[in-house]
């Protein structure tokens, strides 16, 4: 049975992607008999490029992908250089970890509620400092350059890159390298950047690519914070896909192929930039600049990284406050009072999305953890590791822009009659949940002291019993954390859910994003609050269950 686990995992990951890509490609070139497309043609690309402002949309998406990734990676890199190995670093690490699980949409709403002209910051300083008694007519949210959208993506991607770099740092002995560099007279930051960073970066490259791909094709954050006239490319594609005139599907498919190429181009630009930085870098290294005066840079990097984390926290708090707010007029920093009214009013409406979110998350997480465990156990028994190849496969769903294969997949599911079915939704969620579950579980799995299994086997205990009685319990904590992460990923999925569920399966995320245009802050507050509550509960379970099961076992405390 176990033998089939790795091929099954490949099927789950790559199957929907390749089938979906192919099914996007055909209508893009005009072939889709069900809609009357029988001939291969380039006309849909022509009409795509004839759309007004299409090049602005394309440039916006490209810029968002590159700028967002560049800024978040630089902030994380500088913070690591300045503070790794310090108490502050460990504190920030604890601060940042839980932020990873908050869905993109919730972060975006939090930011919007904070920095909008009628947002909390403005309320805090008005009217005393600004003189405003009425929100100014500034376009901060949905600004045409997409700066607020990029800011929202930056603060959301920083926790992700931070944790990925943290995992990589553990593998490259950066502490020793930094000590050697310091003893050679290098400043703290320069020493880290010259010795440890290249090694860390090599390990996290795929994750960085995933951020580029995500940011260049983002839909939910763009709908909440992004420019509207014109929108970034992916948002426009969704508009065409949902057009009552079904022939727009051809154009949407052509656009999805352009999106695919656009993300590929963004990655190429990034690869070029990598080269350039490397040359500049080696130039610096061989000159031996020590850069000992880095105090200001250290404090700046510490301040900016903590600021991004703080913004998420404050944003989440404001969301929570809004959902309980009674009358709250503009320049007041806090509402006049608190009420359960909005919760009571939404309770009936929120029930279905809540249940769908919960069940969808649980089922896809359970399937994902079973596949991941089966693959890892298979690897442990045969001694064969998938190596870098399998890692690349895991990143495949994260690096291919979602519209490029989801459009086709939707049509494919439609043609075999399983579109809008719950199982189709589980299949498409698995594509995104499985990689995260796998990635977060594989390090602790491999760090497990195999001698426990050997000792058990030498006592005559069979492989299966060793797995269930020794390895599973010893790894219970990381297994549950991986599940909590998978659950959070499922909750956060927007595009796969709206496309494959086609509105029949509303989740907290799809409902929250749909509310964005309405702008009722109290209702948005309720949905966004639930959106962050569910993943949080997942992590609470992941911490509480081992503590309960292994109460009184000192050896099971802390990270296994």
């Amino acid at each position: 049975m176990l033998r089939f686990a790795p091929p099954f995992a490949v099927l789950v990951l790559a199957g929907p992607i390749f089938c979906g890509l192919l099914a996007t490609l055909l209508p893009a070139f005009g072939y889709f008999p069900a809609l009357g497309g029988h001939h291969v043609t380039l006309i849909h690309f022509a009409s795509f490029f004839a759309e007004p402002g299409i090049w602005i949309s394309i440039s916006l998406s490209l810029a968002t992908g590159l700028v967002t990734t560049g800024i978040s990676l630089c902030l994380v890199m500088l913070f690591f250089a300045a503070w790794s190995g310090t108490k502050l670093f460990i504190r920030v690490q604890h601060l940042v970890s839980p932020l990873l699980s908050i869905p993109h949409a919730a972060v975006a709403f939090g930011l919007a509620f904070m920095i909008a002209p009628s947002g909390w910051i403005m309320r805090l300083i008005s009217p005393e400092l600004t003189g405003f008694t009425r929100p100014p007519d500034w376009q901060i949210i949905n600004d045409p350059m997409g700066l607020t959208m990029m800011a929202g993506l930056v603060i959301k991607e920083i926790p992700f890159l931070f944790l990925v770099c943290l995992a990589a740092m553990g593998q490259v002995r950066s502490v020793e390298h930094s000590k050697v560099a310091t003893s050679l007279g290098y400043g703290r930051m320069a020493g880290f950047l010259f010795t440890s960073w290249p090694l860390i970066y090599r390990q996290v490259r795929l994750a960085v690519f995933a951020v580029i791909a995500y940011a260049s094709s983002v839909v939910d954050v763009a709908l909440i914070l992004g420019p509207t006239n014109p929108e970034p490319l992916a948002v426009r594609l969704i508009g065409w896909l949902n057009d009552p005139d079904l022939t727009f599907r051809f154009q949407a498919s052509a656009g999805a192929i352009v999106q695919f190429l656009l993300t590929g181009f963004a990655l190429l630009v990034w690869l070029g930039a990598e080269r350039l930085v490397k040359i500049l870098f080696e130039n610096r290294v061989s000159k031996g600049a020590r850069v000992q005066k880095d105090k200001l840079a250290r404090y700046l990097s510490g301040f900016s990284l903590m600021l991004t984390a703080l913004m998420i926290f404050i944003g989440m708090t404001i969301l929570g406050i809004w959902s309980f707010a009674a009358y709250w007029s503009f320049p007041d920093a806090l509402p006049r009072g608190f009420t359960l009214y909005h919760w009571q009013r939404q309770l009936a409406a929120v029930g279905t999305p809540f249940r769908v979110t919960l069940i969808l998350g649980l089922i896809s997480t359970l399937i994902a953890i079973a596949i991941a465990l089966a693959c890892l156990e298979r690897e442990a028994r045969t001694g064969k590791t998938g190596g870098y190849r399998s890692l690349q496969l895991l990143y495949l769903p994260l690096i291919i822009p979602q519209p490029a294969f989801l459009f086709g997949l939707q049509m494919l599911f439609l043609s075999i009659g399983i579109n809008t079915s719950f199982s189709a939704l589980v299949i498409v969620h698995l594509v995104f949940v499985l990689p995260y579950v796998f990635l977060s579980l594989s390090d602790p799995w491999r760090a497990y002291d195999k001698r426990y299994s050997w000792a058990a086997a030498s006592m005559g205990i069979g492989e299966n019993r060793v797995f269930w009685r020794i390895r599973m319990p010893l790894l219970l904590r990381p297994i549950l954390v991986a599940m909590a992460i998978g659950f959070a990923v499922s909750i956060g999925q927007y595009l796969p859910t709206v496309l494959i569920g086609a509105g029949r399966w509303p989740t907290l995320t799809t409902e929250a994003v749909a509310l964005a245009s309405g702008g009722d802050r109290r209702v948005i507050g309720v949905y966004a609050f639930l959106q962050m509550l569910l993943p949080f509960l997942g992590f609470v379970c992941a911490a509480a269950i081992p503590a309960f099961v292994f109460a009184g076992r000192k050896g099971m405390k802390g990270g296994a």
Partner: protein
Amino acid sequence: MGREQTNARTEPASLRLSNVSIALGSKTLLTINQDVGPGDVLTVMGPSGSGKSSLLAFIAGFLDPAFTASGDVTFQGESLIALAPEKRRVGLLFQDALLFPHMSVYQNLAFAIPKSAAGNNAQRLELVTQALENAGLEGLGDRDPETLSGGQKSRIALMRVLLAEPRALLLDEPFSKLDADLRQQMRQFVFSQATKRNLPVLLVTHDAEDAEAAGGQIIRLVD
């Protein structure tokens, strides 16, 4: 004890290493051709990287794929190498006690008892109680293994291995992490228990005192 199992066949219960050779890449680390009789100790001494731990891994069935091994290890004419690791029934002791941290001391010991030795919980409890007495650790059954001292953990680890009714013992520097005086006690305890049960013992170590205390033949590996 009522658990004699060795005299059923005519061949003596010795562990035979026939032309066992372990190599890393093209470099042969060791070649051994040796019998270890019941109750005897064969000590393999060498510095780290000499392949001595790989020898034990090979016999127990956990050799890292980076190594290649040839030759055979037999017990009463039966090849161990042909068997799955859990069918070989050779007890392994490591530097660390490796008591399962999620189980109590009692559970650790009971986990090792084969079905054939105790069919029900009462029999298991009986065997575990005997083992704890044997190790001078009466009444520790309900303890969390993490709360035991280093010496207590080592003794529990040995009792756990013995409860599994092994046909031979493989010791991978099991005394190296203990304090000097504790080490002496533990050596005596391990070897006396092995002799009492007529178990062939293969000890790998870099400590000359271990080899001396073992009292058996010594094979020295050079780097």
